[in-house]
């Protein structure tokens, strides 16, 4: 249908559209990764900043869905898979990078903006202690409403204590917005929201595209601790591991000696530590119940 209409109405189609379809077609053919991102709520004037950051390994195009669809079809893409993402206003990111790399970089290249009414905060908002530079006046009652402690100093409002007014995900209190602006606090992120990535025949939905680097860090830490623990347990013959094995064996030995009351030169101390710990605990416990005046040995 589309092709037909194109052929029939070809003369009425402006040259730039034809050129654009050609260019898109070329981009689709030349790039392994295509990401469709939502442009709604994304300020057009910020796009060039992101483009700048992606320069060299990804190209960001804002195009009409219909043009992209034609180009995709011309490039031999299976359009049925991505059709449902081709609504509202989209940006198309073309790259030969791994789609997750693009995702990570989109996250890193996010910008911040001032809050407007109704925004949810993307980060913790803290009004910092110190001089605000704002002249004392009606604004004082606004600070009051936000439960931010203030005092007036040289006719200016000074905040006396760092005060949290919103956590990530909280709707930002409307009355805070002008204050945040005056303080230069930009609590809302501006970033392209990915809808889907198409990569070498794979379709990766937005949820899967999100990469939480902290999760990876903590998994690596866990894997490493597991590895050390297993190495220690089997006395993996590497000096640094054996040192830990020895330490563990010694810790076990001392504790066993302590629990069984085994006294030798090496173990006397742990034995008495344990006995004293118990005696002290008991003394303290009954000291609480009835005031016996027992001096807890210290």
């Amino acid at each position, binding site marked *: 249908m589309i092709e037909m209409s194109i052929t029939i109405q070809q003369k009425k189609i402006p040259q730039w559209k034809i050129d654009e379809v050609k260019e898109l077609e070329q981009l689709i053919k030349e790039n392994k990764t295509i990401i469709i991102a939502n442009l709604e709520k994304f300020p057009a004037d910020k796009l060039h900043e992101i483009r700048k950051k992606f320069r060299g390994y990804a190209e960001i195009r804002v195009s009409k869905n219909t043009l992209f669809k034609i180009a995709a079809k011309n490039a031999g893409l299976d359009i049925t898979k991505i059709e449902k993402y081709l609504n509202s206003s989209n940006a198309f990111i073309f790259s030969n990078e791994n789609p997750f790399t693009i995702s990570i970089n989109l996250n890193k290249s996010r910008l911040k903006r001032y809050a407007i009414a109704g925004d949810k905060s993307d980060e913790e908002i803290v009004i910092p202690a110190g001089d605000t530079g704002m002249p004392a006046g009606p604004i004082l009652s606004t600070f009051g409403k936000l439960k931010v402690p203030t005092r007036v100093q040289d006719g200016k409002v000074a905040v006396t204590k760092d005060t949290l007014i919103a956590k990530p995900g909280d709707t930002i209190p409307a009355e805070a917005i002008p204050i945040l602006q005056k303080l230069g606090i930009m609590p809302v992120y501006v970033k392209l929201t990915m809808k889907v990535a198409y990569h070498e025949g794979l379709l990766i939905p937005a949820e899967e595209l999100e990469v939480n680097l902290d999760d990876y860090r903590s998994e690596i830490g866990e894997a490493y601790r597991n590895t050390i623990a297993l190495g220690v347990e089997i006395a993996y013959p590497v000096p640094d591991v054996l040192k830990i094995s020895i330490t563990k064996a010694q810790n076990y030995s001392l504790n066993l000696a302590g629990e069984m009351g085994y006294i030798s030169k090496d173990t006397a101390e742990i034995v008495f530590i344990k*006995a004293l710990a118990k*005696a002290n605990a008991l003394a303290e416990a009954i000291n609480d*119940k009835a005031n016996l005046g027992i001096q807890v040995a210290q």
Partner: protein
Amino acid sequence: MEYIYASLLLHSAKKDITEDSLKNVLTAAGINVDEVRVKAVVAALKEVNIDEVLKNAAAMPVAAAPAAQ
């Protein structure tokens, strides 16, 4: 702390901590027994779950035991 040590001795031997048993132990250790204190300790220990108290004490960081040089 003698009264506590004596009580713990009885407890760890699974004996009842009574005025008599406590006095016996203290006397055997050559200690002049203070009747009032014996009464007080026995009464107070009745209100305490000794095993629980000891378990908590054991859970405390006791690992440090510098080896004797």
